[in-house]
Each structure stands twice: as structure tokens, then as C-alpha cells.
């Protein structure tokens, strides 16, 4: 067996395990009929679709497998930032002093999944919405803009989020 076949097998197994976990979560019953039906279904679907689930050109396991403890910590930090920025947004709704502006900047994260999570979380948090994500180039609509310099704006928007994400996905 050469390296390529092993890589195919690993991707197939990860897809099947993920499918089976989702089946267990949704069906929430441990009768033998449901367990066997879920196993057959998840094997069949993952044989058909594992090429799309994990792309061939992914570098290694480390680029898409998060570290579980760090991921949970990140989710709690995200909830905290969500409440903080929402209180700021409430102030803006009532006094109306805002300065919306489009800014462009780059990110240092490498894997596609981490970039997707970064753009999702900057859509959630400090009054910003990701308009476009093109390789490592982000276009962001920022609600409380105070600078137009790309690097300063990037640091202000990404903030500590990128540091936390680096710990989750390498």
C-alpha cells in the first residue's frame, strides 16, 4: 500500500465516523435496528462523498482536526465577545454615531477551515460583516471605523481572535 491509498482510507474512515456520530445525535436511540441501519447508511454515503468532504490537497490531519479542549475554550470566548459587541451595538442604535466603512486586509492563518471559522467569527463579533473571502484576502464592512490603514484595521478587527484560532488549528 502506498501513501496515496492510505490517505484515501483515512479520509474515508473520518467521513464515516463523522456521519455515524451525527446519526447517533439525531436518532438518540440505542436499539439494534437503528444502530445497524445508521452504520450501513453512513458507510454508503461516505463511500460516495468523501472526496468532497475532505479535499485531496489538504496537507495533513493537523490542518482540519481541531484540538477539542481549545475548541470549547474558543467557543466560550466567542460567546463573551458576542455579548460585549452586542452591548456596543445597542449603544450605537440609541445614540446613532456610527462610521461605516469597507476595509481590506489579509490573514495569516493557513488552513481553509480555520480561515472559514475566522470569517464566521468576525461576522459575529465586533460590528463587522465579512463580504468576501478570497484565499487570504478579506473584505470587511466595519461599523465603527476609525482608520483606513489596512494593517491597523486588520489588527483592530481580528484582534485576539486570530491568536486563539492559531492555537486551535495550528
Amino acid at each position, binding site marked *: 500500500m502506498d501513501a496515496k491509498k492510505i490517505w484515501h482510507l483515512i479520509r474515508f474512515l473520518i467521513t464515516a465516523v463523522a456521519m455515524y456520530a451525527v446519526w447517533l*445525535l439525531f436518532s*438518540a436511540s440505542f436499539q439494534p435496528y437503528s444502530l445497524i441501519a445508521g452504520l450501513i447508511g453512513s458507510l454508503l454515503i461516505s463511500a460516495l462523498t468523501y472526496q468532497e468532504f475532505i479535499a485531496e490537497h489538504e496537507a495533513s490531519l493537523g490542518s482540519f482536526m481541531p484540538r477539542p479542549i481549545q475548541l470549547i475554550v474558543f*467557543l466560550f470566548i*466567542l*460567546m463573551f465577545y*458576542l*455579548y460585549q*459587541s*452586542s452591548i456596543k*451595538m*445597542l449603544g*450605537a*442604535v*440609541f445614540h*446613532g454615531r*456610527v*462610521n*461605516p*466603512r*469597507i476595509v481590506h486586509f489579509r490573514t495569516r492563518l493557513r488552513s481553509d477551515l480555520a480561515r472559514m471559522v475566522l*470569517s*464566521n*467569527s468576525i*461576522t*459575529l463579533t465586533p*460590528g463587522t*460583516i*465579512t*463580504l*468576501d473571502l478570497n484565499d487570504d484576502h478579506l*473584505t470587511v*464592512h466595519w*461599523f465603527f471605523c476609525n482608520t*483606513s490603514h489596512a494593517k491597523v484595521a486588520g489588527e483592530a478587527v481580528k484582534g485576539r481572535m486570530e491568536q486563539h484560532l492559531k492555537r486551535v488549528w495550528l
Partner: protein
Amino acid sequence: MIEIGRNIFALIAFGSAVIFGIGGIIGLFRFPDAYSRLQAGALCGTTAVISIFIGSLILAPTWAIAARIILLLFFFLVSSPTGAHIVARFAWNSDIQPWRPADQRRTGSDDRSKE
């Protein structure tokens, strides 16, 4: 005793949900263009719904309901910004200019520049 504590925490969560919900609805009507409305509506709406989830999680009668609410919370943290991003991307691709305050209008260069 435990019942009273649960009620108090649920009251706090639902109270913050009411405040953020009212803020989101006012934001939907107050701002002048689609991007700003999306900012206010999506951010305050997401926070209000998450507060409602936390309140329901405290009041949940059985463990099956509580586990499903936790799952819903994590999926909502993924799906809500995705929905907001789809709407923002539609507005961006259909050439809608972002609104600017009156004193800022001539300072910056082109916002909607196609490279």
C-alpha cells in the same frame, strides 16, 4: 430553593433577550442602508436568540430537551453568521453602495472598487 434560583437566572436571561430584541428591531428601522440594517439586525437578533436558548436551557424539564438545546446553541453559532454573510454577499455583488455619514462623504476614496 433550587426552583427559585432557576427562575431568577432564567429571568435575567429572558430580560437581556427582551432588551437586545428591542434594540435589533429599532436598528432595523433606524439605519439608512442594507448593510447597517444587517449589522444591527443580525448582531442583536443573534444575541437575543442565544439569550433565549440559555434561558430555556435553565428551565428545561428533562435531560433530552436540555441536550438538544445545547446542540442547537452550537449549530446556531455556525449557521447565523453564515446566513448574515450570504445576505451581505448578495448586497455586495448587486452593486449597492455603502452609506456614509454626511461629514465623511468626500474624504475616503472608492469603496466599491473592482480589482
